């Protein structure tokens, strides 16, 4: 089980780093074994930052992240390597995940050299081919090729195969299908669902709510680093309570309904400092005085469904 406890990430901005920008602001989250949790938000909501902190690509400012009870921020050397045996990530742009001057299957060789030096070459080759078939690729068609000779969907599956070679427990999937075509998108998504059945936990980071709903059990909606709404996916989708979630849902382009209302877009790039009130209040159509004064805390409006909004708190959900 992976657990985030009150995790924050701040960056120093302005002259001499005098001001602080909260990329992630006090987020707590649990991902149980064999569960898919979706992190949903616009760009700048801090969803990728959380993924990167879990992968130890950036440091944590405050709070703790732990895997099966072990705090990951202290891991060093051999222990950190063991951590990467269990936790891996796949990112948005498959083309920039590869070095274009080497063949794409070099990523498997690196895993072999670093993590399984005791495995013989023939046995390893069999393992690679087996894993490639698992992710729905034909090894004959894809091995020994350069990245530009493979499609985005193939490269993305290659990266998932690489993670699987390590026998991982936890996968951070950061917008892994947003650059793919609609026709291959769904195949990669189905692959993730298959892996989940075999006990893999997945943190599915996306801005597309319909995709999140398709494969995940629980979701967390983020806005500017703060949790707006979280809980069981079905409840959030059928009864979105936070105005931000409602806006996001209304913005999803769908084939059965046209958009009805106009969007209220952001007009200001960044919020500096930890704002006193609700971070969404400047865009929120329902904001009232209290929203500017203090930050709402998440309350459970029904089982497995938390919302952080004064309007909801006030009206009793």
């Amino acid at each position: 089980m992976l657990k985030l406890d009150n995790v924050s990430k701040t960056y120093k901005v302005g002259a001499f780093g005098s001001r602080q920008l909260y990329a992630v602001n006090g987020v707590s989250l649990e991902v149980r074994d064999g569960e898919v949790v979706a992190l949903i938000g616009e760009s700048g909501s801090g969803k990728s930052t959380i993924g990167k902190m879990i992968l130890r690509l950036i440091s944590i400012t405050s709070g703790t992240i732990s895997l099966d009870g072990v705090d990951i921020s202290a891991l060093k050397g051999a222990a950190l390597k063991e951590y990467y045996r269990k936790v891996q990530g796949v990112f948005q742009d498959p083309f920039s995940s590869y070095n274009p001057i080497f063949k794409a299957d070099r990523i498997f060789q690196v895993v072999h050299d670093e993590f399984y030096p005791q495995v013989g070459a023939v046995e390893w080759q069999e393992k690679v081919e087996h894993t490639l078939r698992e992710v729905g690729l034909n090894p004959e068609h894809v091995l020994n090729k350069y990245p530009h000779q493979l499609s985005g969907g193939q490269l993305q599956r290659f990266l998932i195969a690489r993670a699987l070679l390590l026998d991982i427990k936890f996968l951070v999937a950061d917008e892994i299908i947003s650059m793919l075509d609609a026709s291959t998108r769904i195949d990669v998504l189905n692959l993730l669902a298959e892996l989940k059945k075999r006990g893999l936990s997945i943190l599915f980071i996306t801005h597309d709510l319909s995709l999140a709903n398709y494969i995940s059990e629980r979701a967390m909606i983020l806005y500017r680093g703060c949790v707006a709404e979280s809980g069981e996916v079905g409840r959030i989708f059928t009864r979105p309570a936070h105005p931000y979630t409602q806006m996001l849902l209304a913005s999803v382009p769908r084939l059965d309904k046209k958009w009805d209302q106009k969007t209220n877009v952001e007009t200001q790039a960044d919020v500096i400092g930890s704002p006193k009130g609700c971070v969404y209040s400047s865009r929120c159509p329902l904001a009232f005085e209290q929203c500017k004064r203090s930050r709402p805390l998440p309350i459970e409006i029904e089982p497995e469904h938390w919302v952080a909004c004064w309007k909801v708190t006030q009206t009793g959900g």
Partner: protein
Amino acid sequence: MGLQVENLILYYQTLRGDVHALENVTFTIDDGEIMGLAGESGCGKTTLGHGLISLAPPMKYISGKILLDGEALPIWDSRKMDAFRFRKISIIPQYAMNAMNPIRKIGKMIEELLIARKVDYQALLPELKRRLDLVKLPHDVLNMYPIELSGGMKQRMVMVISSLLNPSLLIADEITSALDVSSQKAVAEMLVEFRNQGYCKSALVITHDISILYQLADSILIMYAGQLAEKGPTAEIIRNPRHPYTKLLISSLPEIGVKYAERKLNGIPGKPPLLLDPPAGCRFRERCPLAFDKCYQVPPFVEVSAGHFIACWKETDGHA
């Protein structure tokens, strides 16, 4: 009037021969029409968009005729096209995030752009500000560097710049793909508003996301591997698609509310053919569940009902 494209053929020159990227493309966009162009990557949609405005090697003009407002577009001659670009035909590029000069303030960049076209910046400034209001950007952005804006704001800024001289045709190349859902919606709505205000007479919206087209386009053209598959009014294409490719493409979209555990969606098996040496006949043949002998010949692009064109033997054999 509007845009008329007749039998356009564009290839890419490579050391191993020509890549047949666009074959015999014929369609029209009427004044005031927003036409969506959709298909998988490699279907030729970006080739078509770029071919219309900046045809540069390795892209190669083979044949075809293009009329914009009744005037022939010399797309094969880059110099002659200078008179049309930005004024008559303009593009919002795919990576609008990186389309602006990072070391110029945005206002200064626009001024230089207009000086190069011999247009008076000061005279245009009030109009520019009006349009900034429309896309909900503060006038301050003119004194900012591109890096100070978020992705969605940059996209909106580039839209304003691209359409500043009221082009006849505005090409929007994947303008929503890199944005999150709320910015996507805002950008799409603004594009429709641009058309309504007459900032562009007609628009060609290139995307792989059909659900976006359903929201904003008047008509949709579906392409596959360089060939036209189907064109028709938006509602017709979504509700009543007739080409097998269109049907598969629409059914592979995850709708909101569908869950893997309850109903598993399927992609389209197989992948598009290589266009260096494309297969004869209908290029969708190998992936098509309905393919039969006749599909070894290229199907004609036939009008089956008002404004609804389709290139498929299975559907048109009875009509032809």
